């Protein structure tokens, strides 16, 4: 409770309250996340359960009763009779799930590698940092595409749809670990030179546990900022990959996949199949980005 009241009185929260952009972005993000979490409860139908679908509902216009069945769908339906509103909610789920998981993965991987590099030093350090540098020469999307391509090549065709989501998380996570590694490595190097490390080694004990206690608070701030921005990037990356057809499959579509499907119906006039998922992605990407931007500026000691 004290921590909460401390936070509410802090400079950070004051700045947050004063910035209309940050507040709106936060509210939108929270709304979207909650909708995704409670999708099964909010959505009028589960669009991926073939049993609940009625093909006659296909191509219903938003808000108008269907000419065959008389059912009304708030945002219309697609060619299979799936309620667009429901597909968006479930799609949000996938988008957010992949985004969060990928960032978690990148954070853990990066931190561990950074820790190893900083602590062990020597050749291991050089090798890890070299790989990081090489990887940084190429845009993340390319790295993710490559990993996805290789994974696809290795997986037998029948399993491809099932593992797609996990490969996606792996690909995006692997393309983003470097920044985390750098921060953690830096902090580890600082700690490594301190006296208690030498002392512990002299006694024959491993100083790692104590080091972690010091490293963690130092890296928390920067890691948080990197994580928020990474989240925004991961969500966009996932949407892009899904849109390109190398991400979430139509059986478990994310917002990106929905947009891809929707693009096919643009010229035949069923604009809603594209428009609403696109607007949702717009809102999500924008608010997470704005939040991350604001956080980075707020935590930047130079601008204070």
């Amino acid at each position: 409770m004290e921590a909460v009241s401390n936070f509410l009185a802090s400079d950070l929260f004051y700045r947050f309250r004063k910035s209309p952009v940050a507040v709106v972005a936060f509210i939108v993000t929270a709304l979207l996340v909650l909708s995704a979490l409670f999708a099964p409860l909010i959505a009028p139908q589960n669009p991926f359960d073939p049993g609940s679908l009625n093909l006659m509902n296909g191509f219903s216009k938003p808000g108008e009763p269907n000419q065959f069945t008389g059912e009304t769908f708030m945002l219309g339906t697609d060619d299979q009779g799936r309620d667009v509103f429901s597909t968006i909610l479930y799609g949000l789920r996938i988008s957010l799930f992949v985004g969060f998981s990928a960032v978690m993965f990148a954070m853990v991987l990066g931190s561990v590698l950074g820790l190893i590099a900083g602590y062990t030093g020597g050749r291991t350090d050089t090798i890890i940092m070299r790989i990081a540098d090489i990887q940084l020469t190429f845009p993340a999307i390319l790295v993710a595409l490559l990993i996805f391509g290789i994974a696809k090549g290795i997986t037998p065709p029948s399993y491809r749809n099932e593992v797609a989501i996990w490969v996606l998380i792996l690909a995006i996570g692997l393309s983003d670990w470097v920044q985390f590694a750098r921060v953690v490595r830096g902090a580890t190097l600082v700690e490594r030179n301190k006296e208690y490390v030498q002392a512990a080694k002299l006694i024959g004990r491993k100083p790692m546990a104590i080091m972690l206690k010091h490293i963690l608070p130092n890296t928390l701030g920067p890691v948080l900022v990197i994580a928020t921005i990474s989240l925004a990037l991961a969500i966009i990356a996932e949407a892009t990959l899904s849109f390109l057809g190398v991400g979430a499959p139509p059986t478990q579509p994310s917002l990106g996949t929905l947009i891809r499907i929707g693009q096919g119906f643009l010229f035949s006039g069923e604009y809603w199949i594209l428009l609403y998922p696109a607007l949702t992605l717009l809102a999500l990407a924008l608010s997470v980005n704005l939040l991350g931007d604001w956080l980075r500026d707020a935590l930047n000691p130079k601008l204070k």
Partner: protein
Amino acid sequence: MLAYVIRRVFQSIFVLLMVGLVAFSMFRFVGDPVENLLGQERTQADIERVRDQLGLNDPFPVQYIKFLGNALQGNLGVSYRQGRPVSEIIAERAPATLELAGVSALLAIVFGVGLGVFTAIRRDGFMANFIMTTSLIGVSLPTFLIGILLIYVFAVELGWLPSFGRGDTVKIGWWSTGFLTESGLKAIILPAITLGLYQMTLIMRLVRAEMLEVLRTDYIKFARARGLSTRAINFGHALKNTLVPVITVTGLQIGSIIAFAIITETVFQWPGVGLLFINAIQFVDIPVMAAYLMLISVMFVMINLIVDLLYFAIDPRLSADASARGH
């Protein structure tokens, strides 16, 4: 200075070799090249023959070297899907990507630098704030979404511009260009804006941030204290100091345009090497994937190298230091 150049060149070569290794490994271990070439009706003798032909029975390092040798000579294998030499396919589709990338880069640089300087100088003006807020959108939105929205507004609703393809092209020698036809010019507008927008907003924000930093420095303050005109300070001093560090990052950004072309080409069905790469992934066409990977890597590594060396040429501190050390 020379030592630095040599070191960088060696680094670049090392990176390329690594990438080559990855590409080669893809070839060897992902999917079965023999199977892809032979199809269903094959005998053991056929398999052995092809394996020998492809050199698959040689030791790994030998295969690797042969692979590199082939690549350097322009022999990048045969596409699994199209059955044609990969180098031929790439040469066919390269002009589309290069023209698109060129126009996008131009847009990005001109507007990026221009708007960056403008929003830094007129920092608190309404226009500047408006541009900055809109730019936030440009950076936050995925490229494909921008493309789709542009298509929706300009192609579907207004019908002014085409929503896919390259229009009519004219062949000059080996190069097919879309610049010489009206439909070609119309067709490149939306894709170029889509591709360039992200880079443009990045460059703009970078230039603005850098310029604001520069305007806060002591030497600018001293310049003001000497009574220099605002124009002299902004465009004489601040601009030059801003552009020097910006050039490096900009160079790298422009390089990545060719990679991001993948997305734009997919949205607009633009027949370039990016779309080729995506299709290759769909169909697990390893030779094309590997070839694209290697080409892109060469391009990136070269751009990185050039930009690094360029930095030396521009900043008098670096070159003077280097030559001083040489004494």
